[in-house]
């Protein structure tokens, strides 16, 4: 502990012990605890207490009957726990009978303060901290704390109840993982008394008819198997698994969610997953629980690296069941391969879905979400039923938009339940997008495109659904451009594209900005991937979409303008932004896209479009876009000028990014310090001076927004590495006079940004670069801005300041 903190500590302890003093707030106390924890972890707690008797006094102070606030009481309990975590310190505190006073019967347990949840929570956390050594275990056993923990499991405060469960696990672990672990028997009846007591309690709970008690026990077991890896966990599972299995015989199965959590936690534990009984229980659980409850278990099982194949098939069946039901209910004619064929079709009768709409929607959504997560995994079930899954998703989407016409009664019910349901539509479209990574029979792919188009065309699609439909369409269009990259779209996809563009045209005129925005995003992505394909180019140029996109640069919504900027950037880099053909525009000369975007950069009132322009410009510069490549210097100069005056720091960062791209073009890419050849360097420096890059970079170095300064620092470091060989970095003797430049920089650093730097010669730049300690600056900038305020010293000062101990500001009451 540093001396300043040590000096402040007694005063702080006095404040904390004084019930009349208002304590700052809970976050201060939390920070204080964090600090003490760090201090005790670094050194001996015993020494700390001996050096600072005020701390012991504070702990003892609590034992006196008085009106301490529950916050302070809770704080002291936790603090005592932190100190007592070290055995010698524990003994030191025990000598003064402090610990029984705090944690035993005479303490807050019996007092009125116990009614406050924060005190109960502090009591548990204190014990949790101190339960680290055999002495603590004895203390816990003797003080009767374990019984209190049992009762706290049912505490009305969920935080307390959950912490009580965790504490039980901690105690178990402590009792069984001691130095004698090698001798711990796998049989629970040989265990220490304290552990036996807990196990008995868990058994009682599992046998109980009251669901909350069963849930408590399951939570405790889940935590134990999830966090503890001692051999004893095996013994515990052997002892309790029959009781867990017996839960499945009850109707309904109590606490299904907690049960699923427990089974998954056991299955993930390397110690226990070899137990064949586990897989049996899991299989039984899958078949006993309702599809909604079993879904998470099935998904968890399928994500496991190794588990019996039969169980995997069964679990997959659970996930597929709702989709299989949909397929069956909507089947126009028999003959379509069923989803569950060859899986566990005989295990489950595909006959029912939940009767209520919300339950049915929930089941479908979770099944779709689970399958979506499974699809990309290497351990996903194989064979993956791609075709029936596609058919099922298409059927669901048809039910949702009312275009399905099922004959069966079940289909009719589904139709009524799913009609217009946005949640299911979103989940199904997400999954459909993921399914594009696999192929499907042509006939189904045709259906996929048809339903996607229906969604895109339908005025009833909500903006979020539409966005997902656009994303899924993009996935499918890209996946049907096979073989990747070199060939046009398939003929069918080409056909779809035509219709798609006419939909897009209308969507770009939508009164709803989200729709315009997702339309533009789709266009940008599509162009990025397909901009070079003749089929796509033809279709796009024949539509009015490019012209509409250009018009959306004036959209009233800034997000839309930003997306329009990105789209215009992408379109024009592929040469797809033809001049408009309509006669009324012919008279006025059309601005080039570059000019239009520069206009946005200099005039737009919102940050998003300007940031988007900077991103496009950087991309253009990197990719050698024609208009830029003509005269890159002029381009960079204009952009940097605009960006340097921008109020949005992200735009300025983007400006530096663009400057970096320009540097890389002149000096070669950022690499292992390859110094540029002198001739090229001189030319490059001239160019950099002409575009006033240095003025921008130096100014940014002292920017009030840290990311800008950091970026600029990186840029200058890069430049220095390129321009000045490390060997002669100190040879600045006969350089040009840079005092005026340095003076200006100092003024900038002091916050006077008004004065320009004036003309800079390359030599002067190099000299300044040499003289600046950029590394030190980089280190300073790397520290977070509140590093001063976060020190413990500052914390103590703050806490004292709030109660007026530090200052001389005795309240003046006149």
């Amino acid at each position, binding site marked *: 502990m540093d001396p300043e903190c040590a000096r402040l500590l007694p005063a702080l302890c006095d404040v904390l012990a004084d019930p009349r003093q208002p304590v700052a707030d809970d976050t201060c106390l939390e920070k204080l605890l964090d600090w003490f924890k760090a201090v005790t972890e670094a050194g001996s707690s015993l020494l700390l207490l001996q050096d600072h008797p005020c701390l012991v006094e504070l702990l003892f102070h609590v034992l006196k009957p008085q009106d301490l606030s529950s916050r302070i009481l809770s704080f002291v309990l936790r603090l005592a726990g932190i100190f007592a975590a070290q055995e010698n310190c524990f003994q030191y505190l025990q000598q003064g009978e402090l610990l029984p006073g705090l944690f035993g019967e005479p303490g807050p347990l019996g007092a009125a303060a116990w009614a406050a949840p924060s005190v109960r929570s502090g009591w548990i956390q204190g014990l949790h901290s101190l339960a680290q050594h055999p002495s603590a275990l004895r203390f816990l056993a003797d003080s009767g704390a374990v019984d209190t923990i049992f009762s706290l499991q049912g505490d009305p405060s969920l935080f307390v109840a959950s912490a009580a469960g965790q504490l039980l696990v901690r105690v178990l672990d402590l009792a069984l993982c001691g130095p004698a672990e090698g001798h711990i028997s796998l049989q629970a009846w040989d265990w220490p008394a304290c552990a036996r007591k807990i196990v008995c309690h868990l058994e009682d709970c599992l046998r109980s008819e009251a669901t909350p008690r069963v849930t408590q026990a399951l939570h405790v077991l889940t935590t134990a198997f999830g966090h503890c890896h001692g051999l004893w966990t095996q013994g515990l599972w052997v002892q309790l698994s029959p009781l867990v299995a017996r839960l499945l015989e009850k109707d309904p199965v109590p606490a299904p969610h907690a049960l699923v959590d427990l089974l998954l936690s056991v299955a993930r534990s390397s110690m226990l997953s070899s137990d064949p009984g586990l897989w049996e229980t899991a299989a039984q659980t899958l078949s006993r629980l309702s599809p909604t409850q079993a879904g998470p278990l099935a998904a968890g099982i399928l994500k496991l690296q190794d588990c019996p194949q039969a169980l995997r098939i069964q679990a997959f069946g659970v996930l597929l069941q709702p989709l299989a039901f949909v397929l069956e209910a909507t089947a126009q004619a028999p003959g379509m391969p069923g989803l569950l064929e060859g899986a566990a079709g005989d295990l489950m009768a595909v006959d029912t879905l939940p009767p209520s709409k919300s339950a049915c929607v929930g089941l479908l959504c979770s099944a779709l979400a689970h399958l979506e997560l499974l699809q990309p995994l290497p351990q996903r079930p194989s064979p993956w039923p791609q075709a029936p899954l596609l058919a099922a998703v298409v059927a669901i989407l048809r039910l949702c938009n*009312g275009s399905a016409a099922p004959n069966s009664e079940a289909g009719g019910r589904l*139709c009524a339940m799913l*009609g217009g349901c946005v949640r299911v539509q979103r989940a199904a479209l997400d999954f459909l997008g993921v399914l594009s990574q696999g192929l499907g029979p042509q006939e189904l792919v045709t259906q996929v495109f048809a339903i996607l188009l229906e969604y895109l065309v339908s*005025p009833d699609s909500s903006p979020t659904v539409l966005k997902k439909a656009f994303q899924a369409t993009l996935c499918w269009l890209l996946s049907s451009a096979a073989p990747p990259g070199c060939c046009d779209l398939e003929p069918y996809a080409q056909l779809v594209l035509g219709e798609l563009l006419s939909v897009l045209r*209308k969507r770009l*005129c939508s*009164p709803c900005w989200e729709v315009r925005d997702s339309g533009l995003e789709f266009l940008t992505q599509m162009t990025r991937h397909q901009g070079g394909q003749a089929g796509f180019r033809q279709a796009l140029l024949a539509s009015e979409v490019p012209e509409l996109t250009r018009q959306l640069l004036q959209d009233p919504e800034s997000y839309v303008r930003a997306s329009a900027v990105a789209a215009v950037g992408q379109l024009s880099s592929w040469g797809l932004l033809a001049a408009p053909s*309509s006669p009324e525009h012919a008279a006025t000369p059309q601005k080039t896209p570059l000019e239009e975007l520069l206009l946005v950069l200099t005039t737009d009132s919102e940050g998003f479009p300007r940031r988007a322009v900077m991103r496009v410009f950087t991309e253009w510069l990197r990719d050698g876009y024609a208009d830029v490549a003509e005269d890159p210097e002029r381009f960079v100069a204009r952009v940097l000028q605009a960006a340097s005056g921008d109020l949005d720091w992200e735009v300025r960062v983007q400006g530096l990014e663009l400057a970096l791209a320009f540097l890389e073009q002149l000096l070669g890419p950022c690499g292992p310090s390859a110094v540029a050849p002198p001739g090229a360097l001189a030319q490059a420096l001239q160019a950099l001076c002409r575009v006033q890059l240095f003025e921008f970079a130096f100014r940014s170095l002292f920017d009030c927004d840290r990311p800008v300064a950091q970026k600029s620092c990186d840029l200058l470091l890069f430049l220095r590495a390129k321009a000045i060989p490390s060997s002669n970095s100190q040879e600045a003797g006969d350089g040009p006079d840079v005092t005026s430049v340095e003076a200006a920089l100092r003024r900038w650093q002091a916050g006077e940004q008004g004065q320009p730097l004036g003309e800079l010669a390359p030599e002067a730049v190099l000299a300044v670069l040499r003289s600046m300690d950029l590394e030190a600056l980089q280190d300073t900038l790397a520290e977070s801005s509140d590093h001063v305020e976060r020190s413990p010293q500052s914390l103590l000062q703050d806490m004292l300041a709030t109660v007026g101990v530090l200052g001389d500001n005795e309240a003046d009451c006149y």
Partner: protein
Amino acid sequence: MKLYCLSGHPTLPCNVLKFKSTTIMLDCGLDMTSTLNFLPLPLVQSPRLSNLPGWSLKDGNAFLDKTELIDLSTVDVILISNYHCMMALPYITEHTGFTGTVYATEPTVQIGRLLMEELVNFIERVPKAQSASLWKNKDIQRLLPSPLKDAVEVSTWRRCYTMQEVNSALSKIQLVGYSQKIELFGAVQVTPLSSGYALGSSNWIIQSHYEKVSYVSGSSLLTTHPQPMDQASLKNSDVLILTGLTQIPTANPDSMVGEFCSNLALTVRNGGNVLVPCYPSGVIYDLLECLYQYIDSAGLSSIPFYFISPVANSSLEFSQIFAEWLCHNKQTKVYLPEPPFPHAELIQTNKLKHYPSIHGDFSNDFRQPCVVFTGHPSLRFGDVVHFMELWGKSSLNTVIFTEPDFSYLEALAPYQPLAMKCIYCPIDTRLNFIQVSKLLKEVQPLHVVCPEQYTQPPPAQSHRMDLMVDCQPPAMSYRRAEVLALPFKRRYEKIEIMPELADSLVPMEIKPGISLATVSAVLHTKDNKHVLQPPPRPTQPTGGKKRKRASDDIPDCKVLKPLLSGSIPVDQFVQTLEKHGFSDIKVEDTAKGHIVLLQEAETLIQIEEDSTHIICDDDEVLRVRLRDLVLKFLQKF
């Protein structure tokens, strides 16, 4: 209680309810779909229309009228729920001998008048040289091309009414306000409630002291311009008559408005014109409001919007003055002071211009590309006919249908072939089936009555079980020209007792909380009010003063035997019989009670819930003895 169903059109209902000796007509909508059988009436002589093969300009305009199911002169009152549902009023009030009263809210009457005025104006300004009616003869009609030959009851089609008839019909209307209680002949009380669909639109409650019938017609739960729907007052109905649901249950009005705006912008940006056939009031206010917000964002501020109707000006101005009938949001604007509808600002800034017709000022101001709102949505008459002819040939132009009353394909038929784009964005804010089922769950009527169209999915989407009224017990359905006996019996009637008579009653408590008293009185019934009055005293002969006063109090009627109540506990009764010397008693249980058999005396006592018989052979003494024993167990009063 009977319901006579005169209209087969669920959104243009016309029903007659006979309830407690009153005859109440609920709405009189005018089904104008038959006009689609006729050619458009052009403002300018159109050689194309008049030369169409196989067609000739015949009878101008005909409308379906009511069947002779009921003598309309017996109708006591007509309740109007909204301005679309009163368009047949002149046919009923002017030519049937109707002498009753019509009840409607003020905006309904004013806007209904505008609609009628527009209709009459559209028809009368293109007078016909000749008219034909011979074809209505069934034998000739059979020879006509389809669909005319399949049309039903063409003989009841009528010519359009005149302005004079309109004025006369409207003069019979009495204005009412929401929640106002109107007594009809003392028998029933009717009350209009806000229905949320249009300015002044109302649902009606028709109730007597013990029965309540709700009439729900054209209601909306969406937040548009009118006052929101009053659902709470519909609770506890015995019967709820449900009509006027949305005609396009699959189209969500919000998405249709979005579609409308997108298509409008797309057309105008390409230099095309947009034509919106519409009524002069209603959805147009909401459309203008949406456009007001949209045009700037879509960069359409330089595009002129024209609203052409003989009543355009009145419609736009009326909408601003009915503040009390508007939704809360718009009401508050009145105090700001701001006009409740933003179309006022559109007019001020010259973005929206309105004209009575295409003649006159409009032809000077007309500038393209533009957006034109005009009637009639059937495309058979009105200024819209001119624009269809003018713009139909160019594929740059678009016609956007927003009114759901007419099939747009049929409306377009006489204009084919058409190059113009056609967009169908029907905007119908009336209740859809999901909202109906929520409403019924909340309101909990005992019985629901609705047109048969609502009790099954639409024919084109027979699998959509969600597109029908779903309630328990199942809704009763009606079809045109059907008489429905409503499924509840009136069981109680309220009768008042005169104070002096009530004073003389001496109630006796027979059970805790229930007291009874006998009353002798005269029931006086007048104007459907029933009053119990004290019985008249006997007319005193002249010179009666000499008689003893005591005789004054003897009532005229004979002495009444006391009334009995209570039940006979059989076991105790048998014990009593035994105590009184009867022996050899057998008790048999029957379905209705017990039979006590006195075998020795050959006597039978039947004890049932509501009667007791003593059957013995001519032994009057025994009978009286037994009777007195029975009476011991009963209370008398």
